[in-house]
């Protein structure tokens, strides 16, 4: 690094990669980078760091795709004219070559498994009649047990049929009283929920109580990681008696 680069503030490199420099600063940085191979190397490395961090987020659909589209491999990147040795740094190619090797291995194993399955099927197949009879018995037992359970549930919760048919909004207020989540013995617990509401919830799958319904992040409707609709939070705040007050400390006052 020459004497000019010794005076050069390297923190400008990060700002340069982030597009946070003024036009004048950008020109200074670009000329310094052009003259200095160590700076070029630093730019490449920091750009890779930046891409890796961004790709490590859940927001990124794919690590390799993020890396491939990252600034430093993009022709539109501000430092694209530096012509970095892409094959030397970008891990995406390495990832794909490793994946190809694994893919071949998996393909071979799958073929062997298929051949073995066919062999076993042809030679050791259990007599179908012997196999089907117990299966029918099991199914009939299961149906019987299921109908008994259904009858029990219906009789024990006969008084709550009204609840089942109520709208989800009404259920929200009754079944999910203001929730202040807490942790007891390592598990999350919610405020008490009446058995009738539980049954109602189970029978009305469209209504979602956070602690009972499908985990929100598994729900296809929330595959973009939207925050789960917390009606409970609003109810909690509105029903908790809290009021906006001027007497609170303004530690959080950021304006």
């Amino acid at each position, binding site marked *: 690094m020459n004497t000019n680069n010794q005076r050069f503030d390297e923190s400008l490199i990060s700002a340069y990669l982030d597009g946070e420099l003024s036009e004048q600063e950008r020109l200074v940085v670009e000329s310094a980078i052009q003259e200095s191979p160590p700076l070029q190397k630093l730019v490449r490395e920091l750009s890779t760091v930046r891409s*890796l961090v961004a790709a490590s987020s859940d927001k990124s659909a794919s690590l390799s795709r993020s890396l491939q589209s990252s600034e430093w491999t993009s022709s539109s990147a501000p430092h694209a004219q530096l012509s970095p040795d892409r094959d030397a740094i*970008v891990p995406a190619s390495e990832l794909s070559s490793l994946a190809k090797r694994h893919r071949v291995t998996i393909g071979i194993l799958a073929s062997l498994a298929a051949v073995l399955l066919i062999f076993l099927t042809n030679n050791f197949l259990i007599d179908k009649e012997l196999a089907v009879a117990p299966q029918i018995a099991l199914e009939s037992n299961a149906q019987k047990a299921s109908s008994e359970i259904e009858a029990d549930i219906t009789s024990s919760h006969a008084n709550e049929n009204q609840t089942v048919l109520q709208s989800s909004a009404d259920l929200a207020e009754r079944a999910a009283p203001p929730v202040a989540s807490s942790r007891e013995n390592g598990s999350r617990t919610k405020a008490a929920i009446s058995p009738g509401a539980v049954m109602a919830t189970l029978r009305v799958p469209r209504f979602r109580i956070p602690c009972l319904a499908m985990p929100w992040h598994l729900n296809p409707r929330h595959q973009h990681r939207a925050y789960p609709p917390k009606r409970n939070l609003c109810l909690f705040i509105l029903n908790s008696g809290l009021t906006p007050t001027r007497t609170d400390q303004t530690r*959080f006052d950021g304006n």
Partner: protein
Amino acid sequence: MESPLDDLELIELIRTGSVHHFSILVERHQNRIFQFLLTLLRNRQDAEDVAQETFIGAFRKLHSFEGRSSFFTWLRRLAYNACIDHLRKQKSRKSDLSTPDVSNLNASPNENPVNQLVERETIEAVRSAIDQLPEDQRSIVCMRDIEGMDYAEIATCLEIPIGTVRSRLHRARLELKEIFERAGLRAFTPCQEIDNR
């Protein structure tokens, strides 16, 4: 819940007693606040808890909001402070930040499970490296490279000058680079080999 009213109008209504309008503010901002907290905490349950604390705190302190910044900026500062408080409390307990939650990655267009496995391993390595950073650097890296906040927004959120944001972010990236190199992350190893030739 859509409302034609903007944040300031809603806040005025809430201040005059129409507190149920606060639910509109919650619905409007909860996703971004949750994302922000998830970026910093990397634990969904913690992020949900802190988001809830943030909104409750916002409701209680609404009269201290003077409108000099946007409501979301103010809310994000509340969230950041609540996050720091949460991390301080968590220090006494065993932190689960070292086991980042990668179980809920979005469906990748590359459906090959092997590719996904390799990607997840790399992601875990990167997250582990981020966790090794000091808190002040880690926050800035997350805000910039994951949340996509610009330097001015970060400076506002952390109440530090933009120059400090720039230098702190640069130090953080240099530190990450060294961690990656020490860990032998493949993204950096070939580069060194070439340079040594």
